[in-house]
């Protein structure tokens, strides 16, 4: 009733091949974009931006990258944190060592170096599959942790191994305030989101999915596994690398290798699994779940405690947060193994049929 495509006829190939063929979807997405760019800056306070929205936007971008590799091409990777680190440190070196380097170019250069490293560590995927590949990509994680801790050149010989950037500018426009930072990251997210969405609908995207569903059959019908797998690694690590650069430059401002530890890799993989593998939308849901929920619980529990007059200690809140978070992950995976994105599409389906479900 609310959501019906009756009467929407596609009269040209162009109309048939749109990203959102249904008018309601198009309007909803445009409204969301307008909300993100125009309404959000007026609605929230500084804390919301710095602690929730900016990390959410950046990690959603990283999850998008991981989803291309894990969700669309079926290559389980535990090296995403490492590719983020490569992106961040390569962008840092480009930015600091070359005078007058524009910020966006530095971030994209970070992505390019992440691509190179990603493709290199993707080579084992031609021989090893599934869980074995996950273990092989773990090598990327350990190698990068080691390299950025030990090789002083990467950190511009800083004694502590911690690097920092400041005075970010784009076309003479300083990126200082949380709103500017948010809009800067959101622009990246929208551009890459659009590119990723189009990529997965294209020939190469279908090759990835064919490889994911059954690589022997895909090879038989003429898809080159090497090309498909390595392009997936390349695209994924490029996006993850740019997200890493944003995480270091825009969110943290000063970082150490621990910011991109193996925990980050797991976090990104969980985002994809919980959000929904093989779904662009799922990356956003997963990032929101992993970023926002712990912080929400951390603030919500003491508030509940105050309400019923029981003061809750910070240590207890912290433990309870982990327990509830863990329980929710298990619950979601049992109720909807295909992730939050599946719930979203079920919801859409229900809206279509309402109020006369058959």
């Amino acid at each position: 009733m609310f959501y019906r495509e009756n009467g929407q006829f596609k009269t040209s190939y162009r109309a048939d091949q749109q990203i959102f063929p249904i008018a309601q979807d198009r309007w909803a997405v445009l409204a969301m974009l307008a909300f993100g760019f125009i309404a959000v800056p007026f609605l929230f306070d500084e804390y919301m931006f710095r602690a929730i929205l900016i990390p959410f936007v950046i990690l959603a971008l990283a999850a998008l990258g991981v989803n291309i590799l894990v969700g669309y091409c079926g290559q389980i990777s535990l090296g995403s944190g490492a590719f983020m680190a490569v992106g961040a440190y390569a962008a840092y070196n480009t930015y600091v060592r070359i005078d007058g380097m524009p910020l966006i170019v530095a971030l994209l250069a970070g992505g390019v170096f992440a691509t190179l490293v990603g493709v290199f560590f993707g080579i084992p995927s031609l021989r090893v599959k599934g869980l074995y590949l996950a273990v092989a990509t773990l090598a990327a994680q350990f190698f990068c942790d080691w390299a950025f801790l030990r090789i002083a050149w990467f950190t511009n010989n800083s004694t502590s191994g911690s690097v920092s950037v400041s005075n970010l500018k784009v076309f003479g426009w300083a990126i200082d305030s949380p709103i500017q930072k948010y809009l800067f990251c959101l622009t990246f997210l929208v551009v890459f989101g659009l590119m990723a969405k189009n990529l997965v609908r294209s020939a190469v995207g279908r090759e990835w999915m064919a490889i994911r569903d059954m690589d022997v059959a895909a090879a038989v019908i003429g898809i080159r596994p090497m090309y498909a797998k390595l392009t997936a690694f390349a695209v994924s690590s490029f996006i993850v690398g740019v997200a890493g650069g944003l995480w270091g430059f825009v969110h943290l401002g000063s970082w150490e290798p621990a910011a991109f530890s193996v925990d980050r890799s797991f976090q990104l993989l969980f985002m994809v699994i919980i959000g929904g593998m093989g779904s662009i939308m799922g990356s956003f849901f997963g990032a929101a779940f992993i970023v926002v929920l712990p912080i929400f619980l951390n603030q919500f529990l003491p508030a509940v405690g105050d309400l019923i007059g029981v003061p809750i200690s910070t240590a207890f809140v912290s433990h309870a947060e982990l327990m509830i978070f863990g329980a929710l992950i298990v619950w979601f995976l049992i109720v909807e193994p295909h992730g939050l994105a599946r719930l979203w599409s079920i919801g859409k389906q229900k809206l279509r049929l309402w109020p006369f479900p058959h």
Partner: protein
Amino acid sequence: MKIRNIVLASVIAVAGAGAFAQAKEQFFPVLSGRTGPVAPNATPWANGHNDYMKLVNARGGINGVKTLVEECETAYATDRGVECYERLKGKHGGATVFQPLSTGITFALTEKVPGDKIPLITSGYGRSDSADGGVFKWNFPLIGHYWVAGDVVLKHIGNKLGGMDKLKGKKIGVGYHDSPFGKELLPILQERAAQYGFTLLPLPIAAPGVEQKSTWLQVRQQQPDFMILQTWGVMTGTAVKEAQAVGYPREKMFGTWWSGAEPDLQDVGAGAKGYSAVMMQHGAERQSDVVKEILEKVHAKGEGTGPKDEVGSVLYMRGVLGALLAVEGVRAAQERFGKGKVMTGEQARWGYENLNLTQAKLDALGFKGVMRPVSTSCFDHMGAAWARIHTWDGSKFVWSSDWLEADEQVIKPMVKASADKYAAEKKLTRRSGADCQS
């Protein structure tokens, strides 16, 4: 009509009282680490900090201004620390000062505090070069930093050998937390190694440090003459146990400020006998006046934050000292900006920069024998470089050295060079004399 007036009057009274209470509270946020890999050590710190703040209120506040504390749990993770900072900085009329108790969080916040105009006290940790107030306007590594600790350890080793020149040809191992926290110690040791002709054997230990077998096998192989530990949390206790396992004498092991407290060694007990650590200013001070006062005015009333038996322990005292410095800076700022008023972060910063805690003031506050005078200035944000060494006797710490002062002649140029490098990277200019008055 009458009822309406009463209602109005009471509303105004309540609002007025509310505004009054609001205006008379100085907010000190706490970034606690009650969970995670450093929980055994960071918990007493937070308890000591909060207890001292309660004591300040029991004594009548800071010239009548009550202290207010709110905690946020970081679990020693940098991203959570940044989130907590953002959450707390604007609460209760604005944060006075942050004490992150983590070098990683300090690095991240150093970039943020100048914009928010909130000072950062990192006594004994954080960036060593932030002692240079000319570049780091908002950072205060009060009463010492890693380079002071490192220099004092070497001095103590030199004294034991009978002179610094006896260090020549010796081999000194450094077991350090493999993070900015651990690495910050290395520059001073390298500088001194070049000066006195001893060799360094750097041994990084991956966080959280419960697995150190390979490090200590290396120690057994290389047999360094001394071991210096820059470890934190569960890492220290594990290191001492592993040293025991490979038979490395604990008498030759020296911890820095963060590697020598009761929670680290209690489980090892007699096995850790002989292990020493640097204490900047205080150690375990169960006999001090301030501890007695806390027991009497806070714990006896059932308002203690943590268990009673940890009151006066090493890390508890560190929390007390942290709170003392935070409060005294505000008191100093009140001298200039108005007694009995709530200070903003910016005003409190002036207080930390012009801190002058004389022995008489410290004695009056109950810190007799706990710490020595501290005085800061526009270009010296550290205030004092004195430390002592204490040694574990199997069940508690006892002092094993006199007061030692780190060599400012060596440290000052290093601090300045490092701060200049930071300023050049960030394109900052040094503060002028005029800026010091602001």
